[in-house]
């Protein structure tokens, strides 16, 4: 369902050009649970932003369910993000002035879900992440782990096929991190495609497939219970 072919991403910093991704080819099937590892600056976030349609590659192509995402305009990308992708960030990225419920409703608003259905869906998602009793709380009134669970609920609101998480447990204590991992497990069982950037061995341990990036290239791509180790 996700097919990257020879994808490159270059940042122009005036005189210096940074090649954040360099010829990445990657296929990810529906329902996979995949971890992305690699040292800081190796291009993990850049890859996630491309996969999440927040950004477009400088070279190469990206197909999502057969659609050529790398050629889309901003409006089309917004629609793909809205329908197919749920993004979870390290720093949560919740709207500070909005309640948990309003935050979860956001993607539903952009999908033009009718108000009543929207409310119901938002509360349902908050219950799913265990925050049924916190719907009217604002982010400032929630713990880090709870905030990340609100972000998870928001990512799930439009029932997307793909959940992308860029170091979701990076700002959390280990207990909160485990709750998030448990949620991921749960989603994986429901057939969602999960891609998680992490430094956390525990998180990676739950994944059937682990990719390692190094200097913008795929260094290793390991599938568990499957010993062929592909170095590129």
């Amino acid at each position, binding site marked *: 369902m996700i097919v990257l072919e020879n994808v490159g991403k270059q940042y122009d910093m005036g005189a210096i050009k940074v090649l954040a991704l360099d010829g990445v080819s990657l296929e990810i099937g529906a329902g996979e649970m995949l971890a992305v590892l690699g040292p800081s600056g190796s291009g993990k976030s850049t890859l996630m932003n491309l996969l999440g349609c927040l*950004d477009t590659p400088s070279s190469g192509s990206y197909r999502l369910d057969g659609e050529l995402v790398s050629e889309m305009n901003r409006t089309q990308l*917004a629609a793909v*993000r809205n329908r197919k992708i749920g993004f979870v960030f390290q720093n949560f*990225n919740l*709207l500070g002035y909005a309640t948990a419920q309003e935050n979860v409703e*956001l993607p539903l608003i*952009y999908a033009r879900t009718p108000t009543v259905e929207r409310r119901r869906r938002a509360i349902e998602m908050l219950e799913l992440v265990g925050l049924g009793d916190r719907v009217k709380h604002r982010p400032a009134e929630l713990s880090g782990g709870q905030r990340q669970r609100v972000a998870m609920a928001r990512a799930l609101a439009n029932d997307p096929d793909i959940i992308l998480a860029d170091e979701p447990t990076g700002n959390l204590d280990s207990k909160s991190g485990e709750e998030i991992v448990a949620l991921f497990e749960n989603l994986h069982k429901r057939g969602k495609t999960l891609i998680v950037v992490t430094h956390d061995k525990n998180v990676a341990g739950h994944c059937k497939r682990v990719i390692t990036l190094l200097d913008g290239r795929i260094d290793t791509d390991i599938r568990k219970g499957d010993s062929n180790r592909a170095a590129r």
Partner: protein
Amino acid sequence: MHAILEYYHELKKEKLRMVLTMLGVCWGMANIILMLSVGEGLYRELQRGLLSMGKDIVVVWPGQTSKAYAGFPVGRRIRFTTEDLNRIAGQVPLIEEISPEFIRWSETIKDNGHNMDTRITGVLPCWGEMRSMVPEAGGRFINEMDLKRKRRVIFIGNAVRDKFFGSGVNPVGRQIKVSDIPFTVIGVMKKKMQTNSYSGMDENRCSIPASTYSTMFNQKYPNNAVFRPVDRKRSEQAQDAFRKFLASRYKCDPGDDSIANFWDTIKSVETQGKILRGIQIFMGIIGGLTLIIAGIGVANIMYVTVKERTREIGIKMAVGARPVYIISQFVLEALLTVGIGGALGIALGKGMIAIVWALPIENEVMNFIGRPVYSPLLALISSTILTFIGLLTGVFPARKASMVDPVEALRYE
């Protein structure tokens, strides 16, 4: 709905800034309304002043030939008589009514030994209505019976009354002598704002029936005539018909323009109206400048807002807000700011107008420039300008917001 909620959050968060911005718009709007209303007041007052000499009337004076014709030389005086005017009234359908105007520039009026010199005019009853000679309560103008019976009745100007009888006195029914002949006062002209005239101001003249006038004074030709065309748009045709009648009656070249001199007050009113509208528009533009400056203020604040809310924009984009949505959100916010400020401005402007009306000033200046008048049309015009400015101030910052790169925006602190 959702966007309005967000606007409310923004209002709460940035109270002072939003209030100041709105105040700017409010003041700009009050200004434009005040300027337009003062212009409107001026327009109405001055137009009324012109109309006080008569509505839709033409004044005509005798002239002389400028072309030789049928053996007559150039420079022959052409005058009209009351009979000529009667015939014109009967034969020219374009003329609704017509009255001669005989004038004695200085006649003595007497009352119990005290006397005064004044102007006496001999006219028909329809002259009073044409020339807006409205009587004060308890009096009347000359009527058909007065004319027919050659009654010795007199209608006097309010200034004549003030000087001769004393101000506030109602002299109706009193006997006075005009050129030693006794007359009965039948009415006093109601004071009016007159800004144009011929043969002096109406407040200084006295009118008697044309028939009575003719028995007293040996004057064959009226000094001038006043008529009203049936249709104000066909005033020129009516004047042509008048001239043609005189040309054939006195054997003049039908194309000779100078045998009668017309003052078309309809045209004067229109011309003055155009000038006054021009002044009003000019004043509106001056008021509009304040509003435009306020609009620039709103645009600036919107730019700051967009910058400050970059992260929020990034979050919205990340969860699927299309650029159009971001644009409409900021345009809506600008419109709301401008709209609320503008509504307050309208209220302020109207309040200021109400205060001017409440002031007990009654002097020449006020009489002349009039009082500001706020009309629904002005409301429509100023609201349209306001909406336009709101859109303009919103669109550019909003466009900038929609161009934000979501990845950059999410990183923004």
